[in-house]
């Protein structure tokens, strides 16, 4: 296996990696201590994060330091301000934040402390998807320990810095991972995304300045402060710095979540980390970064896993959740499963998305059953063009349109085969039927 420096999952070699005791013994809370004891200013902290090149791990890849700098100046805008930690992790294929929350919750908490210090926030909420009961309990336990030791609460280390961190449970809706849907949900409403502008930094939770960050994003921050931005920027590729948690699922021998430098080739990850395609089969198709990033043909497996390389190839890094399909798997069925998901999860505010996802679900379904027509292929394209880009309140419509385009572009032949043969050429019983309640 290629050797590279690691840090994200190092603590996991210990069974008690989730405890404050282990966290403290392995460098934990050293970064926030350094900030408070050396008296770094919030601006200096933001500058360190900017210089590291850290980009958000929630899917969009936005530069984290820059995002933090959008929070208004407290001298001019003294309103209450908040951090909402996005622990809703529900993009199909993605299960990386769960590992951090379950096995290293203090790392998440220290990341929140530093972010709160940098943005002069005194209240943060961790919005955890409701199904992640174990992760929730681990974070709750870690928060209790951190409070007892004075890392969370009033006057941390006797300084002016005070912070409350509260846990909050979601209840099974994918759309609450979208940052404005998350804020509505946290306020106790339906998770209906808000039109932007206004942006969260000016009008977020309860209309106050708010920053939403992903769990893994925040988890990187203590390391950057402790070891320095140059150390961090020394890992990864030109415009995507640091290590990344890559999940790899589907038809591989050893699925899992791996810590890898940004920019590693997908082929290396498949072969050296995931043990290759299962059952000795060949690769048929793959998804680089969660269901929203679309299907790529097997011959593109040499691509580098970073933001820019995948963008150039017409895809996205997304949540770095690779999903592998062997040569016998049907991409049309996989797409039908995904269209069913987007249909179920559309919040219904925008007609293009509400109707579009339902149509996509039905059309992919009938093609898969062998009841499609050749005209359906053009219909798929025109539907997807009607939904995105930028035609709706949030990017869920894009998340359904992108894989649709990718199937038509990269796997048109398979769509045509289904229509011409009147059945799925790789038929696997039983047929897809139900939808979630």
């Amino acid at each position: 296996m290629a050797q590279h420096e690691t840090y994200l999952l190092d603590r996991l070699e210990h069974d008690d990696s989730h405890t404050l005791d282990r966290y403290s013994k392995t460098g934990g809370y050293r970064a926030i201590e350094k900030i408070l004891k050396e008296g770094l200013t919030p601006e200096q902290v933001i500058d360190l994060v900017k210089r590291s090149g850290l980009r958000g791990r929630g899917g969009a890849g936005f530069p984290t330091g820059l995002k933090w700098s959008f929070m208004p100046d407290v001298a001019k805008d003294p309103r209450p301000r908040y951090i909402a930690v996005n622990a809703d992790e529900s993009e199909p294929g993605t299960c990386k934040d769960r590992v951090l929350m379950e096995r290293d919750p203090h790392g998440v908490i220290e990341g929140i402390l530093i972010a709160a210090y940098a943005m002069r926030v005194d209240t943060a909420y961790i919005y955890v998807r409701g199904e992640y009961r174990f992760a929730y309990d681990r974070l709750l336990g870690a928060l209790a320990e951190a409070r007892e030791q004075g890392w969370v609460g009033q006057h941390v280390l006797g300084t002016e810095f005070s912070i409350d961190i509260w846990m909050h449970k979601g209840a099974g809706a994918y759309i609450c991972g979208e940052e404005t849907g998350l804020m509505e949900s946290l306020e106790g409403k339906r998770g209906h995304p808000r039109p932007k502008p206004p942006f969260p930094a000016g009008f977020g939770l309860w209309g106050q300045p708010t920053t939403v960050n992903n769990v893994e994003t925040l988890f990187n921050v203590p390391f950057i402060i402790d070891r320095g931005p140059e150390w961090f920027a020394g890992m990864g590729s030109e415009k995507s710095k640091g290590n990344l948690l890559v999940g790899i699922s589907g038809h591989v021998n050893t699925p899992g979540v791996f810590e890898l430098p940004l920019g590693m080739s997908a082929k290396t990850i498949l072969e050296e980390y995931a043990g290759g395609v299962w059952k000795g089969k060949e690769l048929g198709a793959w998804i680089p970064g969660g269901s929203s990033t679309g299907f790529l043909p097997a011959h593109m497996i040499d691509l580098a896993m970073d933001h820019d390389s995948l963008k150039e190839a017409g895809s996205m890094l997304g949540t770095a959740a690779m999903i592998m399909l062997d040569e016998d798997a049907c991409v049309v069925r996989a797409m039908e499963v995904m269209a069913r998901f987007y249909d179920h999860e559309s919040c219904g505010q925008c007609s293009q998305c509400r109707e579009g996802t339902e149509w996509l679900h039905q059309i992919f379904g009938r093609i898969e059953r062998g009841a499609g027509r050749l005209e359906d292929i053009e219909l798929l394209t025109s539907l997807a063009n009607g939904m995105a880009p930028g035609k709706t309140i949030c990017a869920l419509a894009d998340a359904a349109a992108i894989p649709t385009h990718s199937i038509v572009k990269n796997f048109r032949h398979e769509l045509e085969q289904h229509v011409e043969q009147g059945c799925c050429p790789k038929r696997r019983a039983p047929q897809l039927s139900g939808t979630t309640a």
Partner: protein
Amino acid sequence: MNEHANNPVDEPVDEPQDPLGAKLRAEFDELIKHYPEKQAVLIPALHRCQEDLGGWISPEVMEALAELLELEPVEVYGVASFYPMFHLRPVGKHVVGVCHNVSCDLRGAEDILERVCQVTGAAPGVDSADGRWTVARLECQGACTSAPMFDLDGVYHENLELDDVERILGAVESGNEPN
């Protein structure tokens, strides 16, 4: 019941039952302090009610929450019905949710679901006749690298093989902790 006519002065009056109860009310009073507005407690509170009050959320519970959080009952219903985790009707004694999203589908989720239905006598949308089982299809649960999976009464079971299904469901039925 006309309590004034029927109750002698020294006998306690039967108060209408509080659907939430003192314990949950005390928890919610604490939770309310975490937020600048009461409504934020709604979703966490719905979870706690479902956990403690029989696995589902009744209209009476929704009305009581509405009163507590100063909302209209219809607002509470609108929120509760938006979120797939909330059951607004009674469910079986055990609830099995099988993930049917893409990573699980690729590793045999439909076969697992079929086996779950065979073992329980329930199907998505139709509880078992003896009222013991509710079975549901779920979207991605964040267990994709250990697919296929199901959630049984709030606990994940991952890396499932077909033969595991009967053993795991049988263990919970006989009162033993499944693993």
